[in-house]
């Protein structure tokens, strides 16, 4: 039997253990298998943290794509905080096109698109989330560019139910003449809980990931923002419906499969009576 790749085992383990504590499990796995650190940090989505931009006073979201060491780039000011020793002036150097997380800032053209994307998704955030924080980060690729659209919303604390929603949409845009090939991988991390009263404690937490690929026409750089916008909007609508189905439909059904609210023998008798009735109607 071929040995199992420890990286696959790590992902399998994270898919099984309580998703509410993914970050802690991730740290434990990294302590067991330090070789996997980089690959795991790049592929495991964790709840987003919020930081305030020193220049603009606006909040932005942190992830691996705007990180350099312990510093994070604000999408509003384009500056790293704490400042880097050698700011990524000059954009992306050759051979380091996937420089996100390495102190690189996007090239001038891609940064212009990043600014517009941040404005567009700020509007999107207000319309769909009516609050929360959004951040978009772009970086250059050899044959196009890539980016991540982040959205976070927490419910107002103090109610009998609480929740946090994190959206992480990573995309690649491969430019091929008048068309661009987009590949989008989206993860939503959703934590819900209710405490107190006759319900006791309830925690309903998790994450789901979906992918989509599509070729779309591009007239100019604004088309990219609109295309990514539509892809993300459609994906979030799909995922919101899916989350609703799994969190409130599937979970409830499984509980109903474990314990039947009604009596099992009465249910069996009713089904038997129904069969007899149908049988007698056929005769």
């Amino acid at each position, binding site marked *: 039997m071929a040995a199992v790749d420890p990286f696959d085992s790590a992902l399998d383990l994270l898919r099984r253990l309580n998703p509410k504590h993914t970050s802690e499990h991730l740290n434990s796995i990294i302590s067991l298998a330090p070789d996997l650190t980089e690959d795991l940090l790049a592929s495991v989505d964790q709840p987003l943290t919020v930081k305030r931009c020193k220049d603009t006073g606006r909040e932005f979201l942190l992830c691996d794509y705007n990180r350099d060491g312990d510093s994070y780039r604000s999408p509003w000011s384009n500056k790293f905080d704490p400042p880097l020793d050698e700011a990524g002036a000059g954009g992306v150097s050759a051979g380091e096109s996937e420089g996100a997380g390495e102190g690189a800032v996007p090239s001038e053209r891609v940064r212009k698109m990043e600014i517009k994307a941040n404005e567009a998704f700020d509007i999107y955030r207000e319309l769909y989330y009516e609050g929360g924080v959004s951040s978009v980060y772009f970086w250059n690729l050899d044959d196009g560019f890539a980016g991540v659209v982040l959205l976070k919303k927490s419910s107002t604390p103090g109610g009998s139910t609480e929740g946090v929603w994190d959206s992480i949409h990573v995309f690649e845009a491969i430019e091929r003449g008048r068309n661009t090939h987009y590949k989008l991988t989206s993860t939503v991390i959703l934590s819900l809980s*209710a405490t107190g009263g006759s319900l006791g404690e309830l925690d309903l937490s998790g994450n789901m990931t979906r992918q989509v690929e599509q070729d779309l026409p591009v007239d100019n750089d604004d088309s990219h923002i609109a295309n990514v916008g539509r892809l993300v909007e459609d994906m979030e609508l799909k995922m919101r419906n899916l989350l609703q189905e799994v969190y409130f439909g599937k979970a409830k059904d499984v509980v109903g499969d474990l314990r039947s609210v009604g009596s099992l023998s009465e249910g069996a008798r009713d089904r038997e009576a129904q069969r007899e009735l149908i049988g007698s109607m056929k005769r």
Partner: protein
Amino acid sequence: MSHLEAVSAFVEGAPPGELSDVVADIKSLTLSEPQLVAQLAPAFEKYNEEQFATVKLPGSSQSVIISSHNSLGDGRYYDVESSSSFAFNHETQTASAVQSYVVEGAQADLVKSTLKLVGSYVKEHFANAAYGVYPVESDSKVAVVIVANKYSPNNFWNGRWRSLYIFDPASSSLEGSIKVDVHYYEDGNVRLLTDKPVTASVSSGTGSGIAKEISTTEKKYQDELNKGFVSLSEGAFKGLRRQLPVTRQKIEWDKVTGYRLGQDISGGNGKR
């Protein structure tokens, strides 16, 4: 956290029916430290006793429960219904060395009558459950344990319902908890974990009174839980992200880049 503590926590956090998958992952991640898995015995024991692991005794089709309430020490447990005790291997979850074991003492009659009536209740509401009633705390109280499992790994979900009640004949109080654990993991990882403390009184102090109280309590809890799903869906979930903007139309992205917040870019201008 030591490596042993880390992997022990993984074992204790294994979802219903997925312990062997979690152990396989641990083995793959600790190839350079094979001694770690050998040291997991206490974690397996804790998992099995807390999760009310079930096992079929050799030659029997009936599942019996593993818990701290029917432990005899030294890895042996007993079952009242079959009047037997057995050795349990916590790593392989198998039973062996079955011997006769008869419950005697002050609570023996109450244990037997409660077992019979709780059994009738369990059969009416759980398609796949094991249950047990045991004298505990130096034969001064009676513990009732119910566990129901449903595993559907082909459809990427598994679930467990656990209830534990301790009846104190001296005060007629029935205290315990109901815990539900559901795992759904198709292209994701979603977990429902609940814990409902229960405090009730059974003035009759009889097995029938205890079974009736448990039946009422569990029905009420399941109703509350179903209401809880609705209130989370209508409350916290809705408040996090709308299904569509207030205008009930998707965003017109071609216009967005030129617009600023507060202007109508959701739903076409002039359409309404």
